[in-house]
């Protein structure tokens, strides 16, 4: 069991963003986190990575409580995340960007060693040819790969991918999926937050559904997409009542 959330809640002013959410992730799983807009998915990621603190509940990573730690310490313990809007170091080269990941959270002591390590990750993500280019010169799809390479350089056991596929065309999405599969093959646990249903259904074996801050479903994609509560969340209560009534 690599990540466990127990009754985690967080509000901002009057708005409850995350409401008593509990779930567990087993090592090596690839799990999807879905839900309509404003459901609280990114807030949940921010809670796990330490950007915000939960106001109730606890978060355990490999048995250790992490919900009171600052983000850089959580990163050093092996939790990495990508951002919905990519966050590179724009004027540094692609190699330097990834070196940053290896040098700090990745635990490597010297810059030279970190650069070597970084080169390996660039090769893995197919960016080796761009090593000397400034990060801002890459296309969007490649910037997303760079984001991935940086996260991998931090040597994570748990990777949180926040909408990696936003803005990519079909071919780029397929390539991204291959990469995610390759990462999962290395034994890294992945939590995939996605809007593009097709991606989440092909890449994951389990779905968590968040709606208005609450976890309303946790199960296989087949079960979850037929769950009346999920249909209600996505298509509205009236539609669900007429076309997908809950079993009596």
């Amino acid at each position, binding site marked *: 069991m690599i990540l466990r959330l127990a009754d985690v809640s967080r509000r901002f002013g009057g708005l409850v963003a995350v409401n008593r959410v509990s779930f567990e992730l087993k090592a090596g799983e690839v799990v999807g986190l879905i839900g*309509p*807009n404003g459901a609280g998915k990114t807030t949940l990621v921010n809670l796990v990575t330490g950007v915000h603190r939960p106001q109730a509940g606890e978060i355990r990573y490999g048995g250790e409580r992490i919900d009171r730690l600052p983000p850089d310490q959580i990163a050093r313990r092996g939790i990495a995340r990508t951002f919905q809007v990519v966050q590179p170091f724009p004027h540094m080269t692609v190699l330097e960007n990834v070196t940053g990941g290896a040098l700090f959270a990745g635990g490597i002591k010297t810059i030279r060693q970190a650069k070597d390590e970084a080169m390996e990750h660039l090769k893995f993500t197919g960016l080796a040819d761009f090593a000397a280019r400034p990060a801002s010169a890459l*296309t*969007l799809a490649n910037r997303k790969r760079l984001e991935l390479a940086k996260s991998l350089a931090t040597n994570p056991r748990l990777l949180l991918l926040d*909408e990696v596929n*936003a*803005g990519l*065309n079909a071919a780029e999405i397929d390539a991204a999926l291959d990469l995610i599969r390759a990462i999962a093959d290395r034994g890294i646990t992945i939590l995939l937050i996605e*809007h*593009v*249903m*097709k991606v*989440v*259904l092909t890449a994951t074996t389990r779905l968590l559904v968040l709606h208005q801050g609450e976890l309303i479903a946790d199960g296989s*994609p*087949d079960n979850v*997409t*037929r769950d009346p509560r*999920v*249909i209600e969340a*996505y*298509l*509205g*209560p*009236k*539609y669900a009542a*007429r*076309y*997908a009534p809950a079993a009596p």
Partner: protein
Amino acid sequence: MTLLSVENVAAGYDDVQVLWGVDLDVAHGEIVALIGSNGAGKSTLLRTISGLVRPTGGGIAFADADITTLTPDRIVAAGVVHVPEGRRLFAGMNVRDNLLMGAYHRRDGAAAIRRDLDFVFNMFPRLHERRLQDASTLSGGEQQMCAIARGLMAAPRLLMIDELSLGLAPRVVEELTAALLKINATGLSILMVEQDVLTALELSHRAFVMVSGRIKLSGSSKSLADNPFIREAYLGVPSAAGVMP
């Protein structure tokens, strides 16, 4: 007769492309619904039509005039009025002033504006009651009324509403849809983006279903309501009827 015609429009933010060749149209006097899962690009499409986002491909025509590259204020002057997601009322101003701000660009004189203000207060009596109250102190439903009313004050020929029912109680939504039907009966065309599928389909004549920046389904609202592919559009799983074409 076509009032609004969106042809093969592509658009996005910076280099994140959101819309990939969208076709959509609204005829005179119609209510058209735009539905689809989140992140599909519905709000982006409205913002592209109203000029807040510049399209990178395709064209938009309104009343036979090309509005593709016009600035937002010109598009409002042409008669396309966008009621944005989240209402965006002017906090610190009372209801009446918010409504009058809607008429900001109008040149047809104080009398015409006064007439429209009376019309709007008639349509939404609760707004008249609260006309001197700070707009940010209204309830969610009243704020939505105020936002729609403000849009009406701009003398639109096409009213575009982004997320009518978000965060509102069912009863309030019914009030609002009744008001919209009345407004439509006076000849105003409406394009609405709506989360709740049945609310959208019950209110509109025709509907378009958007998935990942493309229109996947369209047709009369009655026929779409029974269409099993709707579920696939939202949840990605093929229904019993097979995969969406």
